């Protein structure tokens, strides 16, 4: 793998940047792989990378029906944080955040990871009680967090309407300073490049049409490019997880919903942190390019169309203008939707299945991006050892029959 550096940039400028190595190869499928990963988004690529790097399994294919990182990885609002309420979830997300902190160096790829902090606003007394409880829980779990007063929030974000005239006055906020944003595409590309360098085959434009089984164990996957034999099959298909599960006659506790997001025209720097509000139902940050990145809540109906209804966009914009009246004349550039696979308890499924050699990483719902390295890391362990990583154990699919649900609706519901 060609190392990227400032010196390299200078050197290649002398040859008009025409001699850069291809970032990853475009191999033809082999007949057999030890592990086939269905889904070439951030989570799938991270899984492949950690399988190769930490478990020495390099005969891996990542099968992607479109192009790498073209699904939810390209459609999220790039927020990374770990201030979840329950122990199980906060440990998992904190594991991920810790990986984020060294990831750009490790992958030798600029992920534009920016720990600019995340504010979760409180607008009611109950909001503030919940915030205090969550911040205390975070601290007990070794995760940074502070409860801020309205004055502190106002000082941090002068353009936020903190007046008592607001329809939902800001009463305070939780603050996680180590949280922030990362460049979403770069994460997929960085993992893809690093996985490719370790010998992983990235098969794009390859769609899985079936999963072949024999005696309760997987044999391989049928694709539009022929049958590919596999020792283990790991499904990381996000919104399409239920479609894959149906191929083996399984149902999952998932519903796929459209989740919409939008960006404005680029502006000069005006917002240097991430502001979220569960109560008025919106969240916003400003990208390095200058556009305001705004996220909506999910559309209530299920859908695979990668688009949602306009009224959801309207509600979100109303919430953003309520918080930031100064944005009222900003024009939106683009709006889009992704398909998120939501679980009844707003927590993911990282699990073995009753079929030997078939694994699922799904159900991340609205908040999968922040977990990209952590999810890949624990899922790779689960696949390689055929037993759940200690952090992944509470997220087994068995929790729905045992009743050990992890209700993260409070911390994951709207904002992510």
């Amino acid at each position: 793998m060609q190392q990227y550096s400032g010196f390299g940039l200078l050197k290649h400028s002398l040859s008009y940047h025409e001699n850069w190595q291809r970032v990853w190869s475009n191999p033809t499928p082999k007949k057999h792989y030890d592990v086939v990963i269905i889904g070439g988004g951030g989570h799938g690529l991270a899984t492949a990378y950690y399988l190769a790097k930490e478990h020495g399994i390099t005969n891996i294919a990542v099968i992607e029906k479109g192009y790498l990182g073209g699904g939810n990885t390209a459609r999220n609002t790039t927020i990374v944080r770990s201030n979840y309420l329950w122990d199980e979830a906060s440990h998992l997300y904190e594991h991920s955040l810790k990986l984020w902190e060294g990831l750009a160096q490790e992958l030798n790829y600029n992920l534009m990871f920016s720990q600019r902090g995340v504010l979760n606003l409180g607008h009611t007394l109950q909001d503030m009680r919940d915030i205090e409880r969550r911040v205390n829980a975070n601290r007990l779990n070794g995760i940074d967090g502070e409860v801020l007063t309205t004055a502190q929030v106002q000082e941090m974000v002068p353009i936020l309407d903190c007046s008592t005239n607001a329809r939902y006055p800001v009463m305070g906020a939780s603050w996680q300073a180590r949280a922030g944003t990362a460049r979403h595409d770069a994460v997929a590309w960085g993992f893809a490049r690093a996985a490719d360098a370790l010998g992983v085959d990235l098969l794009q434009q390859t769609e899985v049409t079936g999963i072949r089984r024999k005696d309760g164990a997987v044999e391989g996957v049928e694709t539009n490019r022929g049958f590919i034999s596999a020792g283990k099959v790991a499904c990381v298909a996000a919104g399409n997880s239920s479609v894959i599960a149906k191929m083996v006659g399984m149902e999952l506790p998932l519903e796929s919903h459209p989740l919409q997001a939008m960006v404005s025209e680029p502006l000069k720097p005006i917002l240097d942190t991430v502001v979220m509000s569960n109560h008025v139902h919106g969240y916003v940050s400003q990208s390095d390019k200058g556009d305001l990145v705004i996220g909506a809540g999910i559309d209530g109906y299920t859908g695979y169309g990668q688009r949602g209804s306009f009224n959801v966009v309207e509600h979100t914009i109303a919430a953003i203008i309520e918080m930031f009246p100064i944005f009222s004349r900003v024009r939106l550039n683009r709006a889009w939707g992704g398909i998120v696979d939501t679980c009844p308890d707003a927590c993911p499924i990282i699990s073995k299945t009753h079929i030997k050699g078939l694994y699922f990483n799904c159900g991340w719902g609205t908040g999968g991006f922040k977990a990209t390295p952590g999810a890949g890391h624990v899922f790779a362990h689960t696949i390689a050892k055929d037993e759940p990583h200690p952090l992944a154990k509470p997220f087994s699919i068995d929790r729905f029959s045992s009743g050990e649900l992890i209700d993260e609706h409070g911390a994951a519901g709207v904002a992510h």
Partner: protein
Amino acid sequence: MLLIHCPYCEEMREEEEFSPAGQAHIERPLQPEDISDEQWAHYLFFRKNPRGLHHEMWLHAAGCRKYFNATRNTATYEIMETYKMGQAPRVTANEEGQS
């Protein structure tokens, strides 16, 4: 924005008047105490979530406040039909089990 025909009001109305209520035709087990935890979990949480034809419940929240069923394509969002509770859908997928 979807336009939805309420089978009780017998009118096409805008989506904002309605709220989706998930998969339709889920039957509560008659003897919950006789079934396994897995079967109970299946009833509570596991859903078909198909890409394609889907039978689902909607509530006409800002109208008659009644629940009804709809058959909708989850890939194109086209609504094939709406029908009253207790009625069977007229549009169904060919494949057994796919609804």
